[in-house]
């Protein structure tokens, strides 16, 4: 419960701060430009200029296609964004969205744009070991091998062409 109250307390304090800030806004000091961590891939799915302005529209459109219509393999995938852009500094773990070193976070903090994505989506690439459930092999077969007993249990699959 301690952690809980502290969390609510922090939120309330933040609220009070925001209220105060709104009342007495100091002369805006220049906010430093965000330092974006280096990306892994060679180039983005669109030119940087385009991505900067349109990434949200691409993602929004494709999310409905993927989830509601079941269209896979689209060009704009949040997961792929993270694969490339969320990289670890040497000797550090992968940054989470809560950290200013997170690619998305860095910019969104700068632009003061609140996003919802990471309240549900994973905010960084999955570790290699955890990817068994990840993208499927191209041939559509699972890579996992199962004991021979399985065949007995399932019975042979005979299908007429």
């Amino acid at each position, binding site marked *: 419960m301690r952690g*809980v109250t502290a*969390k*609510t307390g922090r*939120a*309330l304090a933040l*609220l009070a701060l925001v209220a105060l800030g709104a009342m007495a806004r100091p002369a805006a000091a220049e906010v430093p430009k965000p330092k974006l961590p280096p990306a892994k891939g060679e180039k983005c799915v669109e030119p940087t200029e385009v991505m900067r302005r349109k990434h949200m529209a691409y993602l929004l459109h494709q999310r409905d296609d993927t989830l509601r219509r079941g269209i896979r393999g689209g060009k704009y995938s949040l997961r792929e964004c993270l694969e490339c852009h969320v990289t670890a500094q040497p000797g550090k773990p992968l940054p989470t969205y809560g950290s200013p070193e997170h690619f998305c976070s860095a910019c969104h903090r700068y632009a003061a744009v609140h996003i919802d994505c990471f309240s549900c989506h994973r905010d960084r690439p999955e570790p290699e070991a955890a990817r068994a459930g990840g993208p499927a092999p191209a041939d559509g077969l699972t890579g996992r091998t199962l004991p021979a007993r399985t065949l007995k249990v399932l019975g042979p699959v005979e299908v007429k062409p």
Partner: protein
Amino acid sequence: MKPHVHFREIEGRSPGYYALLGFLGLLVLAGLVSALYMEIEGHWVTGMSNQVVWGTPHVFAVFLIVAASGALNVASIASVFGRLHYKPLAPLSGLLAIALLVGGLSVLVLDLGRPDRLIVAMTHYNFKSIFAWNIFLYTGFMAIVAAYLWTMMDRMGRPYGKPVGLLAFVWRLVLTTGTGSIFGWLVARQAYDAAIMAPMFIVFSFAYGLAIFLLVLLAAYRWTGRPLGDGLLRRLKNLLGIFAAASLYFVAIFHLTNLYAAEHAGVERFILLDGGVYTALFWGGQVLVGYLLPMAIVFSGLGRSRGWIATAAALVVIGGLAQMYVTIIGGQAYPLILFPGKEVSSSFFDGVVADYAPSLPEVLLGVGGIAIALLGVAVAVRVLRFLPEDLRDELVEAQAAAGGEGGSGTAGGERPGGAAPEAAAAPGSAG
């Protein structure tokens, strides 16, 4: 000069008035902070769980929404059924309807898992969902009642009074049907699967709405020192008794028909016999406190005292909350029947009665909803002319005899200070 019922804002400068505003304001604040707390931590800090997904906030919210449509009844009795004695009370009735609805909806929205996505709820509709329909029913209700108030309070709107009043009446029936159907259509839940749910909710709404109306009326006239006739009160309290009796009748029918359906026998046993707190709340809260005691009060000699009338109304409100608790939470606590006739058990509470205890933030949020409604009324009667400044029986009678004209219909449009009863209206501390 013909006697008139005149409407006037309350003065609202007394320390008592400000104390009332401050008190209600605090309750609203407590409700909002609770909602924020539940939102930030997540619902695990409440009594709610994956078995009881709608908790105390829903008890208050649904109660307020149901009461809202019932509060409009006084106005409907006057305009739709031509009972002109009630006409001077119509504006307060409309105001209360809107305020209660706003209070109830606030609670409902603040209890969402993602209240921040309210905008989504307003831009994505699934027209098959009774919930989505209700969004329209509620907003439409507010708009229509607002128009109705306009016909009562403004000379320009007067000619439309009758049709708009009728529309408001029909709409409120549909609205309560919609609210009742939220439960009635949950076929899988043993406790709710009944067509009688919707009409039963309409009857409940009559009682709850009138009870709140009476409480507000009594408080307003006592605190402002304005005169209020005993004859008018007698009509209202008798009506309350009748609504309580009708509710009891429907509840009896509901449970009797359910008892006949073998598949509902289990849940009936649960509510009526061995459901622990739910059984206690049903018999002690809903039936005794909510129906029998108020009926005993209003139909006996006690009903002549204002204190007792207020008590009866308060009991109806408490009984109403108990009813909602039994219906909403009791209905969920009783396990879903997956395999009729068999016993089930699992790691997910299958086959066992779910435990639920209201948590403080939930209760505060619910009470905050009531406070929102009352605060709205307290402010509105100060800035607009909702309350007749004199409701002595002679005046009401005379006005009703005159066909209701010149009373509630025009009072708002009449400039105060015309035949002005300013001097006569001096009594009391004016709130």
